């Protein structure tokens, strides 16, 4: 904390470390305090629709153990992660769920060990013959209970892996654990119900085409009321140049929808030909959260099919964290090659890259004073920060969203360095944990981020935080009131763009009022 105090500007010199709760403060240990935090299990219908057994199979132990071996042989990284840990402890205080709950099983190494101890028992020489010497243990019902509880207290955010000297990625271990649990009939309701909806309807919400069309029409009306301009949100437009794939929350929730209006204004200002697809009306890909390659692939193939059917030349992803990880890192493997797209553009491209490029080229003009009622900070979403990139330079995923925000508002302040960029904290609801029955975990997991926000709120009078992830936005809208912030203190990056963008021929001052956001 003292380092930061030294860096503070003149206006804040009177504040001392005691005024803040340290986001990184190590809590007192509370063994087992979160052992009952478990999301609802998936009903047989949701399990079976994804090709998993409806309920726990009689020979679950044998199948789970066999599957650890299969995954070990299939994924080299998984094997390295299980074998390499030397228990150095560097990761122990890096997880937001550990910092928020104090439960030692939320230390990343302890979480990994829930699976590693069974792996050692069956797949290592020492574990087979001298299990007591190497912490190897049998798979029991209690262990399975722990798996279900604590692998659903990992948001797969990978903060721990940044600090691990071996680069062990707990997210991979938790994905594998969830895959094993799905395969033995113990899946999670929230993720599996949603993946089923994407396979049948095309999005997480279950929003059918007529409802989507009506919503977009309604929003076009709003845009016209605000600006006097016909700003379109085209749906299923064949021959459009750009396919926008965005989280379905952008069609439904606040502040997501304000971000969608921002994309529409940017496309309008650029004179772009673009469309949304009702068939692939979802950027999110929860197949990743449950470690299921097959489901992840099936969801991705919808995007490919939509792009082919509509004859687009480019694919752009909206503000969705893990979607961008899947898109940036895996899309070509899952659903490529995309040789039918225009090769001069990134495949796929992020909406922030698109907007940033237009700003660089002077195509977009802003009246930053429209955001003067906001003092802003930026929350780096975990999957974008640690599992992808933007632009053509290292760190572009950190700089590009910030460059956009600085271009559209006058008051921007970063949170403490050890809580942002690659050290960013998860919002507390990522990785398939954005479900209400584990609200206590979500609130506690948000604590490090909220403390960092409280710090800039006190130091710089920050009032709002922007994000580029649908999960982060919903999670913060829900938990921010617990930490003294209004639910609409979380905003979309493209909402800020939307507020400030100058559109040719627009009625002046039309979107000054914020009454709908209050």
């Amino acid at each position: 904390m003292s380092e930061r105090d030294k860096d503070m500007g003149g206006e804040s010199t009177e504040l001392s470390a005691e005024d803040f709760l340290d986001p990184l403060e190590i809590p007192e240990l509370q063994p087992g305090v979160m052992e009952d935090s478990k999301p609802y299990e998936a009903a047989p219908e949701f399990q079976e629709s994804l090709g998993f057994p409806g309920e726990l199979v009689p020979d679950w132990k044998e199948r789970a153990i066999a599957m650890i071996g299969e995954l070990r042989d299939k994924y080299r990284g998984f094997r390295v992660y299980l074998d390499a840990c030397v228990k150095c402890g560097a990761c122990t205080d890096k997880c937001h769920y550990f910092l928020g709950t104090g439960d030692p099983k939320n230390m990343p190494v302890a979480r990994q060990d829930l699976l590693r101890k069974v792996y050692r028992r069956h797949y290592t020489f020492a574990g087979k013959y001298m299990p007591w010497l190497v912490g190897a243990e049998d798979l029991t019902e209690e262990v399975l209970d722990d798996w279900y509880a604590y692998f659903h207290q990992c948001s797969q955010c990978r903060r721990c892996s940044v600090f691990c000297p071996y680069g062990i990625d707990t997210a991979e271990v938790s994905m594998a654990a969830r895959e094993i649990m799905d395969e033995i009939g113990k899946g999670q309701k929230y993720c599996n119900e949603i993946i089923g909806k994407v396979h049948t309807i095309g999005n997480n919400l279950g929003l059918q085409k007529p409802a989507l069309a009506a919503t977009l029409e309604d929003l076009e009306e709003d845009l016209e009321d605000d600006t006097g301009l016909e700003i379109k949100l085209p749906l299923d437009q064949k021959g459009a140049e750009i396919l926008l794939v965005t989280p379905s929350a952008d069609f439904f929730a606040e502040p997501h929808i304000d971000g969608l209006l921002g994309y529409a204004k940017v496309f309008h200002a650029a004179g772009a030909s673009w469309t949304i697809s009702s068939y692939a009306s979802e950027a999110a890909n929860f197949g990743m959260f449950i470690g299921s390659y097959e489901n992840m692939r099936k969801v991705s193939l919808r995007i490919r099919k939509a792009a082919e059917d509509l004859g687009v030349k480019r694919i752009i992803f909206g503000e969705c964290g893990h979607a961008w990880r899947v898109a940036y890192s895996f899309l070509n493997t899952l659903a490529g090659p995309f040789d039918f797209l225009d090769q001069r553009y990134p495949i796929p491209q992020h909406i922030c890259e698109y907007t940033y490029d237009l700003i660089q080229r002077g195509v977009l003009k802003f009246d930053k004073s429209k955001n003067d009622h906001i003092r802003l900070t930026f929350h780096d979403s975990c999957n974008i920060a640690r599992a992808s990139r933007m632009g053509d330079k290292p760190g572009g995923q950190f700089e590009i969203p910030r460059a956009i925000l600085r271009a559209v508002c006058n008051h921007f302040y970063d949170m403490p360095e050890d809580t942002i960029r690659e050290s960013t904290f998860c919002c507390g609801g990522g990785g398939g944990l954005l479900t209400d029955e584990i609200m206590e975990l979500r609130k506690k997991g948000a604590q490090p981020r909220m403390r960092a926000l409280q710090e800039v709120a006190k130091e710089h009078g920050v009032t709002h935080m922007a994000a580029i992830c649908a999960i982060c936005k919903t999670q913060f809208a829900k938990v921010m009131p617990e930490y003294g912030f209004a639910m609409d203190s979380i905003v979309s990056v493209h909402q800020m763009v939307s507020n400030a963008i100058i559109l040719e021929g627009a009625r002046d001052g039309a979107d000054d009022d914020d009454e709908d956001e209050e």
Partner: protein
Amino acid sequence: MAAYELNGTTYEHDEEGYLTDISQWNPELAELIAKDEKIEMTPEHWEVVNFLREYYEEYQIAPAIRVLVKAMKKKFGKEKGSNKYLYELFPYGPAKQACKIAGLPKPTGCV
């Protein structure tokens, strides 16, 4: 599976209290679900619940908050067309809590 009991009839619901068979919904049951949510139904609550049901009938999904706010504003006046107003009526969120009382499925996804 858990269920609501009303006048000798049982109405099954999921873990979170959303009706399993939405065709079973009736206004009296809505009052009961609301009570579980610690909400006393007033005419203002009914305006929202009835609108949600109409919208659902047409689109098989609840409306976006923004669409709901706008429709409320159009139908019942400016002071009823705000997020704040809806959250005062349904503190756990108009989408989820009002849907539950209206007998509609819970909106899923990152919402």
